[in-house]
């Protein structure tokens, strides 16, 4: 959970702006007037026979991030992700990949892009049934014109990486669903593309296998740091994998943000209806609920100053940091009083190191056992041990209750079942 592998921030890799895809005759007519541009999908279908699959969608995906597009079946996710590669020709809009306008590409440039910069993974795997696992994995390289020896060598390597060593000479039909999708992933990785496009890659798999594949994707991603566009209808999956999540409805992106933002402040009833299925224990992080303490004790302060600090603020305990802001320990009132009785001059004797720490991206689920194991607040620190904030038992409880409370005000819009929507 802790490492979603957000490597290099802020370098935009894929940028989509004002993208439309309308299926049917004369789609341009719909784009011409403001009235039809904003009309409901059903109305337009009845009046013009056209299906608006993607409506004026804009988003940016940073290099190395995993961007999730989530929505119910029919919301336009597959169409959107295919438009990025122009497997489906967009009706209007702009797509920039690494700063280049893909819509302006001629056929040759487009093929070049697909051969070298992108790799796609499909819900139904899309494997070639007449080719061996090895040949499937090597397909992208073959199309590119890589010599046989070389492409087999690379394909073996990636098959190894996805755990399919020994299956090279089988046909895909001999493999289970999970293994077939591994072949699909290997085929995409063999090209070593910058960008991976995944259209519900795990939706067709058993829940257990699905979870395992998700975990492996996270592990893989922390190793390879690809830019990933990931489509799913499963909120848990979206929240688990995504650095950012975009929620689609009827072709629109209706909310976009980090998983946490989406879950803590759903923009409307529709999103809330999704979100109420997700457990806050899996998404709310330490950094979002921690508090900046009113007072902090510094290493160089003496026992008297410490006592004064606690008394005036009506506190029982306070965290102590050094000059660099690093957490040194916890000073409790109890220990201070003992120190005074003994008449010691240095604060060192009152420093208690028996407290627990958590990192900023720990989720509620991780914090429960920590809170239970200590009688003190939990200190939140970064990798260098720098003090960031503190979390009290009560805060954890409150954030839980808030999560539940918002559920009850949930609207009447269709409830997302999340899983197994498309099966």
């Amino acid at each position, binding site marked *: 959970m802790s490492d979603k592998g957000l490597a290099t921030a802020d370098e935009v890799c894929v940028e989509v702006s004002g993208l439309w895809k309308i299926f049917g005759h004369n789609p341009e007519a719909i784009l011409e007037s403001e009235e039809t541009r904003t009309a409901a999908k059903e109305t337009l279908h009845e009046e013009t026979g056209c299906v608006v699959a993607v409506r004026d969608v804009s988003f940016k995906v940073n290099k190395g991030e995993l961007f999730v597009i989530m929505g119910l079946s029919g919301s336009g996710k597959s169409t959107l992700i295919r438009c990025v590669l122009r*497997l489906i020709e967009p009706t209007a809009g702009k797509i920039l990949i690494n700063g280049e306008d893909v819509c302006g590409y001629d056929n040759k440039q487009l093929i070049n892009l697909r*051969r070298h910069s992108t790799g796609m993974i*499909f819900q139904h795997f*899309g494997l*070639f049934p*007449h080719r061996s696992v090895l040949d499937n994995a090597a397909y*992208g390289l073959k199309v*590119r014109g890589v010599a046989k020896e070389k492409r087999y060598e690379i394909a073996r390597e990636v098959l190894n990486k996805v755990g399919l060593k020994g299956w090279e000479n089988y046909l895909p039909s001999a493999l289970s669903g999970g293994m077939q999708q591994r072949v699909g992933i290997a085929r995409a990785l063999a090209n070593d593309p910058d960008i991976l*496009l995944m259209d519900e890659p795990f939706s067709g798999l058993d829940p257990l296998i699905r979870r395992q594949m998700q975990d492996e994707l996270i592990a893989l991603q922390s190793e390879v740091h690809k830019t990933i566009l990931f489509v799913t209808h499963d909120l848990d999956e979206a929240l688990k994998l995504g650095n950012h999540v975009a929620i689609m409805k009827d072709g629109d992106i209706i909310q976009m943000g980090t998983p946490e933002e989406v879950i803590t402040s759903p923009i409307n009833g529709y999103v809330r209806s999704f979100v109420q299925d997700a457990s806050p224990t899996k998404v709310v992080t330490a950094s979002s609920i921690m508090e900046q303490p009113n007072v902090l004790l510094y290493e160089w302060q003496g026992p008297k100053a410490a006592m004064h600090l606690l008394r005036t603020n009506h506190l029982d305990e306070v965290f102590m940091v050094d000059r660099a802001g690093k957490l040194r320990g916890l000073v409790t009132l109890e220990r201070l009083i003992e120190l005074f009785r003994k008449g010691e001059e240095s604060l060192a004797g009152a420093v208690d190191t028996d407290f627990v720490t958590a990192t900023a991206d720990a989720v509620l689920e991780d914090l429960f056992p920590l809170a239970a194991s200590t009688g003190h607040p939990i200190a939140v620190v970064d990798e260098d041990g720098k003090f960031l904030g503190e979390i009290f038992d009560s805060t954890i409880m409150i954030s839980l209750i808030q999560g539940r409370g918002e559920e009850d005000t949930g609207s009447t819009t269709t409830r997302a079942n999340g899983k197994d929507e498309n099966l």
Partner: protein
Amino acid sequence: MLEFPEFIHFPLAEWIDAIMHWVLTNWGVFFDAVGDSILLVLLYIERFLLWMPWFVAVLLVGLLAWRVMRHWLAGVVMAAFLIVIGSFGYWDLSMMTLAIIIAAVIISLAVGIPVGIIMAKNNRVEAIIRPVLDAMQTMPSFVYLIPALMLFGLGKVPAVFATIIYAVPPVIRLTNVGIRQVPQSIVEAAQAFGSNGRQVLFEVQIPLAIPSIMVGINQTTMMALAMVVIASMIGARGLGLEVLLSINRIEVGRGFEAGLSIVLLAIIIDRITHAMAARQEYTISS
């Protein structure tokens, strides 16, 4: 009064004659070239089949049948069929018939498979060709003798030509169907990895259409065999002519022998090509 009035006269025959005349004067060179190439293919095959010692042919058929049908008994039976044909004294005639069939099938495939591919790739072409194929299939087979006769006169070439016209629809149809049946998701995957049109066709669509194309080849071969008997009416020598002659002379025994030879030849060809098609299916779906 009761007779059909003579003034309602539709001069179709004259028109057709005029068209044929025009075709022959303007396209004569073209049809000569077509005829010559057909003859060339046919003669090579015929010469080879007649040159091949009978026991070699029997052995080859036996081995092939055994290999593709995966049963030694099948090989023995097919070889025995060929010996039966020879024992009737029809070895040479059956080889001539076989030569016409093989020539017609080779040319049918050379024309039919590309046409099927174009048809699969282009909806408009399909919309034009499909009704033509439907019409061709509903017409009685001897109708094809007429244009063949008009373009090439009497002899072997028009026989092969008529056989081709009659036999080509199944391979076109099944090539088209086979390619169209390749799941869109697989074609899309090929495109997503940067395949160009040629690569999609040769790496994915055609290999996956092979079982269907093989069924087409089997059907085309069987239709060629059926047609070759009829084509003997316009001068193709072979088993068909033998049947025709014995009917004319009311020689029942001779006609029966010739007819049986054709049936045996048909069984050999059908079983072998059918087994080949089935094997393709097996390799891909397993």
